[in-house]
């Protein structure tokens, strides 16, 4: 795994003058087989993402947003079409892409620290000194304010803290692409708000070098965080219905963003798009 990582790093450095799309999702479709039946989850998804761009997917439950994300992660391959990352076809999971799940997916028998450290250790192996791996773990846990809670197990901390652990874990493995699958979906509004800012701070602190794809069904979240919002049609056989650029300058600040007329206009537009959707709107 050493070779692709280095070549990826080179691509990152040369990135300032790079006009090619970094992530290229080309006419991707995915069908799942349930016994004898085949159900198409997504079809014909085409998307080009620049390096360091934040793209949000929004749509109703079951519209296949997560399916697209999982394919970029390499958890399963697309049925049709292709996904290229930094010029290379995605064939399985790689250390260049880290994921944060709605279900946190922390290992319950490991402490907060070990949950992060095991991922760091696994990804960097002997390309980093043991001491540096420990320091890296500490750095990211400090960034999400969890260093004091490092010896606790996931069951002993709140949902927001668990998700911060998962976010620290994802950032700590130094990914080029960060895949967030409804990361704040299970959290209360207050926790959610502070985690948005923590996520943006982490991202900015890391020089915004990660390309981020996020799946959500929260309109405010999508506008506040993303550079572009992909509105999905309802499933089955969902696809991108409309791409909405968010021209708000960074760094963004929640309160001023909320009162920005452009924000309100985009929100209005997104609401009308999502409400107009046929069927399962109650979902």
């Amino acid at each position: 795994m050493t070779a692709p990582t280095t070549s990826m790093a080179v691509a990152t450095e040369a990135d300032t003058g790079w006009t090619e799309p970094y992530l290229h999702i080309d006419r991707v479709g995915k069908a799942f087989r349930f016994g004898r039946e085949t159900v198409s989850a997504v079809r014909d998804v085409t998307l080009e993402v620049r390096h360091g761009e934040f793209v949000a997917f929004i749509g109703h439950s079951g519209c296949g947003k997560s399916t697209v994300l999982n394919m970029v992660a390499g958890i399963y391959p697309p049925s049709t079409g292709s996904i290229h990352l930094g010029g290379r076809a995605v064939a399985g999971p790689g250390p260049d892409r880290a994921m944060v799940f709605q279900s946190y997916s922390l290992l319950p028998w490991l402490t907060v620290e070990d949950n992060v450290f095991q991922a760091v250790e696994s990804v960097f192996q002997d390309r980093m000194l043991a001491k540096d791996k420990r320091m890296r773990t500490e750095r990211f846990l400090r960034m999400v304010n969890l260093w004091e809670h490092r010896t606790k197990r996931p069951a002993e901390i709140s949902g927001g803290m668990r998700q911060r652990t998962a976010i620290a874990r994802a950032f700590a493995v130094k990914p080029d692409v960060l895949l967030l699958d409804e990361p704040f979906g299970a959290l209360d509004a207050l926790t959610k708000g502070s985690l948005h800012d923590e996520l943006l701070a982490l991202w900015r602190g890391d020089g915004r070098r990660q390309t981020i794809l996020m799946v959500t069904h929260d309109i405010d979240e999508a506008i506040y965080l993303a550079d572009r919002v992909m509105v999905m049609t309802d499933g089955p056989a969902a696809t991108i219905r409309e791409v909405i650029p968010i021209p708000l300058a960074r760094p963004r600040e929640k309160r001023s963003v909320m009162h920005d007329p452009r924000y309100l206009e985009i929100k209005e537009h997104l609401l009308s798009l999502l409400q107009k959707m046929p069927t399962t709107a109650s979902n």
Partner: protein
Amino acid sequence: MEDVSLALPGLEARGDRSRRARELVARALPAAASTARRAGWSLGSVAIVLAVWQLVCLTISRDFPTPLASFRVTLELWRNAFTKVDGVPGIGFQVLASMRRIAIGFSLSAAFAIPAGLLIGVSPTIRKLFDPIVQVLRPVSPLVWFPLALVAFKNMGGVSSSTLFTIFVTSLWPTLINTAVGVSSLPPDYRIVAKVFRFSRWRYLRMILLPHALPYVLTGLRLSMGTAWLVIVAAEMLSGDMGIGFFAWDAYNAGSYEKMIAAVGAIGGVGLALDRGFTALHRRFSYEEASR
């Protein structure tokens, strides 16, 4: 002014102490109450057993040893537990002999059942191949295994090997099946974590699969231990050289029924202790799923 500021901490400290004392009492009281309540329930169970027992002695069989007589004999037996009485080793030695056999048979069984369970849990192919074998052999009674083993081990230790083998084979199944279930019930989320963060096979085994399966394995071991203890008594009745099962059978043949009751007490007591031990281990290694 100075006086006041000096006196204040003292006052506070005093208030502190009395509050701490109150807190201590407030915490200790419910704890004591719950201990008392638990003791009460235990006492109730014992009372029921004794009542039924006494009733049996009074109605069904006059030969059946009464609770009081049995209690006296039991005390007497345990007073001389680790001496030889009329050339016969005391009840303590008998229990130890049984436990030694269990330790050997059970360890061998665990050493085989855990890896086998892991393999069966991990690989559907292996599971399909071995599941019928497990299902056929599992219900076979120790009363059949023992004579079969006698034939098989005729020239390899005979009776003592057969006793061990019977324990080995009958205590395999709970551990094997529970281990397999533990491994195959791994939530897919954890498998995806391993994939996304590129866990090596070894790290996956050590950090995900084994910690997840461990509570299942321990439950299996606890059940296996129970089976082993159940079987050893039967096996010793058949093999008849030493051990608590042999002791009970010997007491029956000698017509000293109170001794049989003492043996039952010893068997139950040791069984309970082993069970509690494994339950404590299980609690130590169980983790609340915190994924949501």
